[in-house]
């Protein structure tokens, strides 16, 4: 009897990987070990419809339990892997159990960055990474209350939109000059600033929270300029850190993520990694990157599943894609907006138009569209194939 295929983490990457490993021919057992208490559920709604709507976590399951039963994939939930022994090919669980593996997958994701300032343990101070966080936050939502969101990234902005829909007062504290600095260009950041302001959100740039006030529950956030902003609810959304502890401890290569090749293999051929925890060399951008998106987790998982079955599917020249929903807007990004030297942009907030093309050395490297998926689909092959961009493509964005 061969040892099982073990998958650590039970989220987007693990769900895809577990079913794919079976589909692609794995004969032995498949065991998914996750420290959360739910079967894999969709994370994106947690900062969107879950906050403003009526759905439960059970409604968000990626696949029904029956799909895993059918594929004979078993789960050990509420269970953490605490150690990997690569020599003996075993993993140790937090209850002391030791399991042998034939193939191992690290789908450990990422963890919200903490903000370890005074008052961070007060009631009403939240993170937004998992269902547990979202349930706690949701129970604190109520109209007329004040919410202060720390960090103007996608999670913070989506949460702001959801809380405004619930008629809360919302202030966003952004440490930089503008929101979304890390991910998009200034014009796009300005578009989203105006969007949120038009819905009544207060955005404060260059504002750093220095402490939370209150005795039991939070009552205010103190900023670097000494100002105290009233707050009944705080959401900390200041980025994530890839969960690489097990990889480091077992001597796998880690470079801002568990480093994998184009087939999602680590430097140990029996161990793959996929999703938010994994970094790799991107063939088109010619640089090491780590992507935090569902599409990335899905594609790496397909490659990882193939590798576990001794097949090869390369993912490292795929163009990263990401979406975000805020109010009546669906933003889509394809490519990596980094190191561009020219931009073509068309925008009109009132009409909900925002199309942007980013170039480096006359090659298209990324594109953004708001409520315009068909156009973005048309643009993508230019990035992938490195084709020179003609005026027709640029004109197509103006015609919307």
């Amino acid at each position, binding site marked *: 009897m061969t040892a099982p295929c073990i998958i650590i983490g039970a989220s*987007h990457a693990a769900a*895809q990987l577990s079913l794919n490993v079976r589909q692609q021919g794995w004969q032995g057992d498949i065991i998914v070990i996750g420290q959360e208490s739910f079967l894999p559920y969709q994370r994106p709604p947690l900062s969107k419809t879950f906050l403003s709507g009526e759905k439960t976590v059970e409604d968000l399951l990626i696949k029904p339990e029956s799909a895993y039963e059918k594929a004979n994939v078993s789960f050990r939930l509420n269970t953490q892997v605490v150690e990997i022994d690569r020599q003996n090919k075993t993993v140790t669980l937090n209850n002391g159990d030791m399991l042998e593996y034939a193939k191992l997958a690290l789908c450990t994701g990422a963890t919200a960055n903490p903000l370890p300032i005074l008052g961070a343990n007060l009631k009403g101070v939240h993170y937004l990474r998992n269902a547990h966080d979202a349930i706690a936050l949701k129970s604190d939502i109520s109209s007329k209350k004040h919410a202060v969101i720390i960090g103007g990234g996608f999670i913070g902005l989506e949460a702001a939109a959801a809380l405004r829909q619930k008629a809360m007062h919302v202030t966003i504290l952004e440490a930089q000059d503008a929101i979304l600095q890390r991910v998009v260009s200034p014009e796009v950041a300005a578009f989203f600033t105006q969007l949120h302001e038009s819905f009544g959100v207060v955005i404060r740039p260059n504002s750093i929270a220095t402490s939370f006030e209150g005795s039991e529950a939070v009552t205010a956030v103190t900023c670097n300029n000494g100002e105290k902003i009233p707050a009944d609810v705080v959401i900390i959304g200041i980025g994530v850190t890839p969960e690489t502890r097990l990889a480091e401890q077992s001597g796998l290569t880690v470079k801002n993520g568990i480093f994998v090749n184009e087939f999602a293999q680590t430097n140990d051929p029996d161990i793959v990694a996929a999703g938010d925890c994994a970094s790799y060399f991107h063939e088109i951008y010619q640089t090491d990157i780590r992507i935090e998106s*569902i*599409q990335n987790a899905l594609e790496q998982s397909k490659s990882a599943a193939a590798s576990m079955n001794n097949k090869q599917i390369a993912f490292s020249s795929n163009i990263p894609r990401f*979406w975000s929903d805020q109010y009546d807007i*669906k933003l889509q990004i394809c490519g990596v907006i980094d190191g561009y030297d020219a931009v073509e942009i068309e925008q009109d907030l009132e009409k909900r138009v925002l199309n942007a093309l980013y170039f480096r050395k006359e090659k298209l490297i990324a594109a953004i569209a708001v409520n315009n*998926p*068909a156009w973005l*689909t*048309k643009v993508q092959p230019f990035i992938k194939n490195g084709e020179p961009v003609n005026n027709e493509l640029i004109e197509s964005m103006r015609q919307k």
Partner: protein
Amino acid sequence: MSANKVWQCITCGWIYSEAEGLPDEDIAPGTAWEDVPEDWCCPDCGMDKSDFTMVEVGSNGLGF
């Protein structure tokens, strides 16, 4: 062939064009949406086929 409609994933906005198909996933160009396997999932968000809607992008597909 009339398989020239365009479908959009409600969750993430990903587009399925019948004219283009999805050759990477063995779905040939010209495959009508109803002929895409029921267990197929959106490549960008992983949602099931039932989470798609049809988008009208003219009668001529995406015009690639």
